[in-house]
């Protein structure tokens, strides 16, 4: 029997699952954002699975367009996955229920700048996980600004 049970409550309009993945599928950062509501549609494992599956779609798209913001690249039930690729091919992936394209684009752009700053540290190598608490605070602040 399936160990993973999904409960489809009414669409949860303010939950987001955000992941930064470096080339080679290396996990750099992940964060759950929930604003104003409790409970989520999918379990954490499911969210990771959905985002990981969406990475293949990003790989397909990445050479056919010069945009960094790829917008929605995949759907799963009531969830969408949006993607943004930086010049050094780092993927910003966001799983979301609400389709607020402008907010998502602005979120991606600001997190991209934040990532660039993290990259500037000589003690950080591309592909490594980002563990800074300050980075986490800033990502949360950016999410709150655009999705809260």
């Amino acid at each position, binding site marked *: 029997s399936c160990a993973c049970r999904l409960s489809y409550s009414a669409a949860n309009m303010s939950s987001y699952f955000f992941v930064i993945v470096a*080339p080679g599928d290396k996990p750099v950062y992940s964060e759950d954002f929930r604003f104003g509501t409790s409970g989520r549609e999918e379990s954490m494992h499911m969210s990771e699975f959905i985002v990981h599956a969406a990475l293949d779609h990003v790989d397909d798209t*990445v*050479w*056919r*367009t*010069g*945009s*960094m*913001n790829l917008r929605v690249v995949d759907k799963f039930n009531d969830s969408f996955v949006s993607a943004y*690729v*930086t*010049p*050094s*091919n780092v993927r910003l992936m966001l799983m979301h229920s609400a389709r607020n394209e402008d907010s998502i684009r602005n979120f991606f752009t600001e997190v*991209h*700048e*934040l*990532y*660039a*700053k*993290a*990259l*500037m*540290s*000589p003690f950080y*190598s*591309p592909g490594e996980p980002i563990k*800074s608490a*300050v*980075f986490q605070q*800033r990502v949360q602040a950016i999410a709150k600004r655009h999705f809260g």
Partner: protein
Amino acid sequence: MSARSIYDRPLRRPRQEVSLSSFAFLFSEFIQYSQKRIQTIPELEEKLREAGERVGVRVLELCTLRERATKRETRILGILSFITTVVWRSLFGRQAEALEKSAETDDEYMISEREPLFVKSISVPKDLGHLSCASFTAGIVKGVLDHSGFPARVTAHHVPTDAQPLRTTILVKFDEDVMERERSLA
């Protein structure tokens, strides 16, 4: 009270230049440091390239954000153009002198510099032969190419002429994967 972190520093600042002498001093120390840890000239060039690569990936992200570009490069000419104009201007204050495609093979390109910045104040003793400290610059180019999805072999060659004793060519040879993709996108 909050300490200033790397995240507080602005990404975009008014034109910021570092004194060439400071950089030359740092660069010469780096070369001397590396010299104690290698046995052969190619190893020294490799160390310089590795150091350059670490700069390359950072310069790639930083220059794109500072130019407020919303595009990524997906074609060879695009990324080489980005390197010889945007990256060069950011690092050296001017564009590269020339970008050429090899006549013999379709996977080779050459970036030429009459007088590379780093190399001006370095004198290479005869026993170090063909060493080009522009290997550091080659490393920067390689860092940009590898991380933007255009892996390549990048090497620096000192090609002096009477008129230009410091003339240097950076040779870029793209991996076969890149050429295949480039052909399929054409």
